[in-house]
């Protein structure tokens, strides 16, 4: 069930250039169903900024009633969010949307988790849950440059982890798809979250495979009411049928929607 709660800031720290890790506490945590779901944040009680900001859930700790998100300080909203200190509160609406299906891969099989930039965070909770389930995980994570890399060690503890940077300042130079090819990584299921061009590349390479992707779109309500975040369905690419990223997604099976 979707809740709206003033959650307490437990910790906030910068973990890479303009990248922050924020942990919040509140009962809303008990409602989270799957990795890949997101929350919609109101960072101030003032009207500037006015709208909520969608941020993925990167780590869940139900025992402590806490969850963690990782976000980049981009514009006004995330900058204000990055100034929150422990003890302060954040107005959280969530959990929202449908996440990555765990049952799309079975114990003993291999899952390839492919993330780009701020698309990496939700894969961390996913990876932990897959490992708990006995699935072999391999991570391929793309970043702009060394200064933007985060969570490499954490992912490494869960499975093989390849890092690619666009400028080659760290790990492999190039895109995540290059890395997958170069090392001939094979998998039963691929889960991915990142910029649309990356998702398109994955779609064209592995259309025939068992692939799940998480999309980004500008949002209004975040709950399916305003029609801000729709995309065409692949079945009817120019017609009237549609999916809402906020409430039908953000995770879709590849080939379900038009990227």
């Amino acid at each position, binding site marked *: 069930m979707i809740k709206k709660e003033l959650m307490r800031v437990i910790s906030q720290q910068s973990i890479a250039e303009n990248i922050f890790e924020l942990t919040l506490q509140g009962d809303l945590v008990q409602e989270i169903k799957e990795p890949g779901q997101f929350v919609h944040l109101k960072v101030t009680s003032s*009207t500037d900024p*006015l709208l*909520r900001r969608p941020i993925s859930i990167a780590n869940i700790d139900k025992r402590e009633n806490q969850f963690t998100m990782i976000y980049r300080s981009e514009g006004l909203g995330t900058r204000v969010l990055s100034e929150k200190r422990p003890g302060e509160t954040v107005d959280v609406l969530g959990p929202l949307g449908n996440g990555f299906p765990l049952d799309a891969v079975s114990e003993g099989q291999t899952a390839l988790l492919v993330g780009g930039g701020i698309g990496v965070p939700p894969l961390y909770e996913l990876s932990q849950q897959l490992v708990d389930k006995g699935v072999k995980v391999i991570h391929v994570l793309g970043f702009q440059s060394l200064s933007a890399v985060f969570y490499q060690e954490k992912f490494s503890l869960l499975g093989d982890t390849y890092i690619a940077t666009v400028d080659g300042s760290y790990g492999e130079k190039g895109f995540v798809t290059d890395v997958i090819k170069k090392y001939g990584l094979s998998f039963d299921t691929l889960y991915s979250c990142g910029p649309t061009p990356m998702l398109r590349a994955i779609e064209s390479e592995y259309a025939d495979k068992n692939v799940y992707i998480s999309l980004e779109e500008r949002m209004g309500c975040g709950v*399916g009411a305003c029609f801000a975040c*729709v995309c065409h369905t692949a079945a009817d690419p120019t017609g009237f049928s549609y999916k809402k990223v906020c409430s039908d997604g953000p995770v879709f099976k590849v080939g379900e929607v038009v990227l």
Partner: protein
Amino acid sequence: MSRLEIQLPGLHLKNPIMPASGCFGFGKEYAQFYDLSLLGAIMIKATTAEPRFGNPTPRVAETTSGMLNAIGLQNPGLEKVLENELPWLSQYDVPIIANVAGSQVEDYVHVAREISKAPNVHALELNISCPNVKTGGIAFGTIPEVAAELTKKVKDVSEVPVYVKLSPNVANIVDMAKAIEQAGADGLTMINTLIGMRIDLKTGRPVLANRTGGLSGPAIKPVAIRMIYEVSQAVSIPIIGMGGVQSAEDVLEYFFAGASAVAVGTANFVDPFVCPTIIDELPQLLDELGIDHISECIGRSWGKNAKTVNYSS
């Protein structure tokens, strides 16, 4: 009788608070948060004769204390609204105001005739002012004669009272309102969005795929208050006011300006509970101001030239 109760043509409102069209879909999403029967009414998303996908994304952009939208009247079309949405809503004890849109007169007339037959549709809201559709929409909203003509035609076929939604993107809102009143409209709803734009410095392009969009939210409230203040003194049909309403205080400012009910749009996105919260807070605010019944607030700010308001119970 409840101090929040308001009677308007076709509408018996438990309270004068209703979600604005396009900001509440057809109710399903917000039914997750509270009992929709708490609302005074619901203005459903614009319905057109045929289904519409709407504009490409991005469809929304934030502005200072406001937002731009260019949804493009996405909706499943008249048939599906009659088949699915309205029957689903009939489980709630709340009057529905059907927002009717189109690109030519025939569309409006057709949708109005059919949708006004639905048992839980108690009034129509003629959307002659959508800034986000290439043809029609806006034209009907800027030329008084065209608006009046359309109003007449829709009145002829509608089985429920007809409210016409005014566009703020005009030089003289009073002329428009008078023409529509003379054409037989039962009420007015105002305002629709102002036309605006945001440009992304990184891409150098407008943020919205549609380039321009409709500006809503607290930023536009002063424009809405001014227009309602002017129009409410020039016409004798009731006005449902909207534009940046977020609080019980905002609601009373609208009543003081001359509105008889208030719709809440963008604020639903900021706080899904905003409508029931406002409904809860209104009685206490009335107490603080020493007002018995909210209807006493209608047109309070007019001063000397105030006309008596008789359409509210």
